[in-house]
């Protein structure tokens, strides 16, 4: 059938770069060739021993860890406010909470750079964390909101009528029911923050830069397959995470729901 052939071709177009990156990462020489002339793990060794990548990996861990620790509770509370009870101007609030999503990266990046310079925070990771929190917030709010909407308020009322304090009802009833949304939010927050590049490029230097920025600098300056090896590690991790997420969270519900 023609449609099937077309779809397979298009999927090949979408996955081709991934396949090439993984193949090239095992290339034995610094001169890129496809298919590779042999098999070597030297570029993986290079990734793990290159000092700037080690430093950037630590920065990524600090920035993403810090941002996620802040954004998960903040986003969850906001999603609860949007999804429950009376809230005046709900659509305005929704638009505001999702707004960081639509601001071009260079605009946000330059804005944070100017702000950081004004506050004397150019060498600080706190600006990176603050920017990541804002950029990731829409994803967390959206994911948790889906769970909040599916929540039956009768369950909380039942807990309250059985004598649970509001806090206990929240902790024992609401929070466990929100778990799928919280997991999806956590997944998005980590993935988006770990891969954030444009804004981070503007507000980091060689000491504070996170992995995507360090990779960008490397690509611009060197042509050997080290980045192919690091990219392969990113790709494999991502596929495993997305596959697990699809298995346990049912991604079609998250993505194709309206």
């Amino acid at each position: 059938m023609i449609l099937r052939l077309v779809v397979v071709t298009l999927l090949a177009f979408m996955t081709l770069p991934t396949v090439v990156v993984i193949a090239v990462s095992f290339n034995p020489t610094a001169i890129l060739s496809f298919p590779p002339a042999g098999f070597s793990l030297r570029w993986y060794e290079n990734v793990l021993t290159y000092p700037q990548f080690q430093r950037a990996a630590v920065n990524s861990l600090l920035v993403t860890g810090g941002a996620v620790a802040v954004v998960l509770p903040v986003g969850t509370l906001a999603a609860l406010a949007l999804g429950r009870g009376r809230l005046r101007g709900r659509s305005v609030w929704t638009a505001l909470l999702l707004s960081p999503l639509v601001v071009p990266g260079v605009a946000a990046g330059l804005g944070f750079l100017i702000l950081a310079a004004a506050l004397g925070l150019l060498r600080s990771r706190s600006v990176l964390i603050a920017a990541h929190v804002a950029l990731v917030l829409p994803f967390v709010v959206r994911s948790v909101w889906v769970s909040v909407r599916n929540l039956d308020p009768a369950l909380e009322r039942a807990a309250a009528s059985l004598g649970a304090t509001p806090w206990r009802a929240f902790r024992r009833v609401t929070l466990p029911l929100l778990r799928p949304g919280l997991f999806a939010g956590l997944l998005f927050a980590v993935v988006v923050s770990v891969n954030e590049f444009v804004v981070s490029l503007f507000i980091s230097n060689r000491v504070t830069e996170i992995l995507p920025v360090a990779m960008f600098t490397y690509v611009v300056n060197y042509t050997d397959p080290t980045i192919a090896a690091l990219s392969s590690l990113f790709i494999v991790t991502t596929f495993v995470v997305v596959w697990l997420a699809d298995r346990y969270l049912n991604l079609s519900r998250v993505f194709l729901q309206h």
Partner: protein
Amino acid sequence: MKLLLAPAVVVLAIFGLALAALFQWSLREFIPGSLQTGGLTLANFRGVLAPQYLGAIRDTVVLSALTTVLTLVCAYPVAYALARTPSRRVRSTLLVLTIAPFFTGAIVRTYAWVLVLGNTVVTWPVPMLFTERGVLVGLVHFSMPTMILILAAALSHVDPAYERAAASLGASPARVFRRVTLPLSMPGIVSGGLIVFAWTLSAFPTPELLGGGRVKMIANVVRDLGLDSFNWPGAAAFAMLALVLTLALLTVVGRLSAGRTS
């Protein structure tokens, strides 16, 4: 309920402050060789339209328009398969293949195209890397997941019974598509097209790496001015241009979809 929003308001306020700083600097006079600025001026916005930048603005609009059309054409069949397949297994595979690039970061995806376009896999008959052609390929690839998801959502609203009805009345598959499926999926096509166009207008990593300094879009000019020339006021004016264009287009999308649901 309002109290629950307080922490998020703080986050949004910081974000707003950054954009306010951007706006303020776009109106300040640039003093070459210094990060100090002079008084208020509109010179930066006049600078946006200077002859040396008109090419970048034209390229940005042309590349965004081409990207939008090509992405629509390439994403539609995949979205159709995703929305119509009866098999859960096929749907799952399509979805994972669609979403995975969405999750791999911009640098990994763009670097992959540096390899493919740089004659490592096949030798291209025409130069691809560091040309507008190459940037276009990268931009289409980058926009595919978003477009597929938007179109698939729109197509899942189109009842297949209409297509079956048209076919049973004697319409050829091409005619069914042209007269039934395509018009009914138009809302998705319009909003998907506008969203991809808006995002491509401010695309940065793809033209930066695949253009290799020879293809400049608006965002690359912002980087050059801001991080190489330290002309933050000039860069801010360009960034404001990108911001206003994007917000204007996405407001149109919001209006359209609000009009549909009401």
